[in-house]
């Protein structure tokens, strides 16, 4: 089955075509937020260069959050539009879960982090062993300080992945944590990982139709959602 992976959940964007566990093509760009202009041409490019038609696709896998408000909407709506003509099955994949697939060959605790601003990160923690991923937390928004408190309990080595990885890694010495950071080639969300993750989710839970695909947004904790200064109330 051919699976098209789509990611535009943050600053970078990528499209990948996978089949039977192999990557046939992948297009990755990281030049700022112009996904509305670049994403569709990237799809065309990947399909054209692999002699693939939309109707050949068996599944669309898209990172549907957490991430950038506009970025996620662009990816999800593009997939909806492409899936509708041939009723192609779809699956929304957690951006954080997809990044665990970047580090599938590790034996480690993988800490996926995306910068959510205001000293918060979108995060989920996974244990990876023998090519299997075990989810240890749900996707959440958490302060970097609170995340460190949790990470201290792990005996295994911790690897940060995601666009918040550097942010977290740079503070590790303040918290006396034995942590590593994923190399640049594996650090950001990748459409190929989204496609692999999507396949795994579908095998377990089945796919959904384009009409049921909606973005998945995470809210920071109540205290972090306060916009006004307390004295102004």
């Amino acid at each position, binding site marked *: 089955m051919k699976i098209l992976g789509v990611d535009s959940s943050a600053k970078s964007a990528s499209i990948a075509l996978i089949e039977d566990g192999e990557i046939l093509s992948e297009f990755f760009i990281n030049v*700022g*937020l112009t996904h509305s202009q670049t994403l569709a041409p990237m799809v065309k490019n990947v399909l054209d260069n692999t002699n693939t038609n939309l109707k050949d696709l068996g599944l669309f896998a898209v990172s549907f959050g957490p991430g*950038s*408000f*506009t*970025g996620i909407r662009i990816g999800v709506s593009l997939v909806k539009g492409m899936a509708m003509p041939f009723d192609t099955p779809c699956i929304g994949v957690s951006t954080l879960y997809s990044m665990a697939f970047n580090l599938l060959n590790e034996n480690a605790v993988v800490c996926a982090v995306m910068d*959510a*601003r*205001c000293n918060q990160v979108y995060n989920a923690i996974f244990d990876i062993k023998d090519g299997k991923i075990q989810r240890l937390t749900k996707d959440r928004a958490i302060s970097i300080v609170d995340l460190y408190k949790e990470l201290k309990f792990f005996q295994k080595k911790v690897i940060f992945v995601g666009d918040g990885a550097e942010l977290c890694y740079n503070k590790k010495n303040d918290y006396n944590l034995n942590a590593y950071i994923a190399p640049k080639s594996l650090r950001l969300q990748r459409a190929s990982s989204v496609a692999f993750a999507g396949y795994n989710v579908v095998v377990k839970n089945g796919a959904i139709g384009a009409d049921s695909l909606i973005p998945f*947004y995470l*809210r*920071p904790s109540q205290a*972090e*959602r*306060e*916009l*006004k*200064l*307390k004295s*102004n109330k």
Partner: protein
Amino acid sequence: MEIISLSCKETEMIGKKLAGNLSGTEVIALFGNLGAGKTSLVRGIALGLNSEDDVTSPTFSIVNEYMGKYPIYHFDMYRINTYEDLYSTGYFDYLDNGILIIEWSENIEAILPEDAIKIFIRYGKGESERILRFEGIDEI
């Protein structure tokens, strides 16, 4: 730092001067009541960044984009009351991608970036006199 402006035109000139200090990704947070001259100040900044676009208050659109030396994103936070409101304007996506100028910053003061340039505008003695107080920038 405080600067006194005696007219709309002078407020605009102050904006123009401020523009010369910008490097492209600043957040400029404006505080001040109706008629304080916030939009005049933004017009000056846009002019100073060689933008030929019309500067108007984004009361209904919430954000206006002007093309100049750097992209300028002009926000009006008057109707922004919750985190969800703010998130769905794409505010967090605009950060670091251009200059953000924010009217009614009072409404999102708690989550402004630490290095934001804050400008408080208040009424002076004369009818058209305004006092502009700057925080986060030493001189313009």
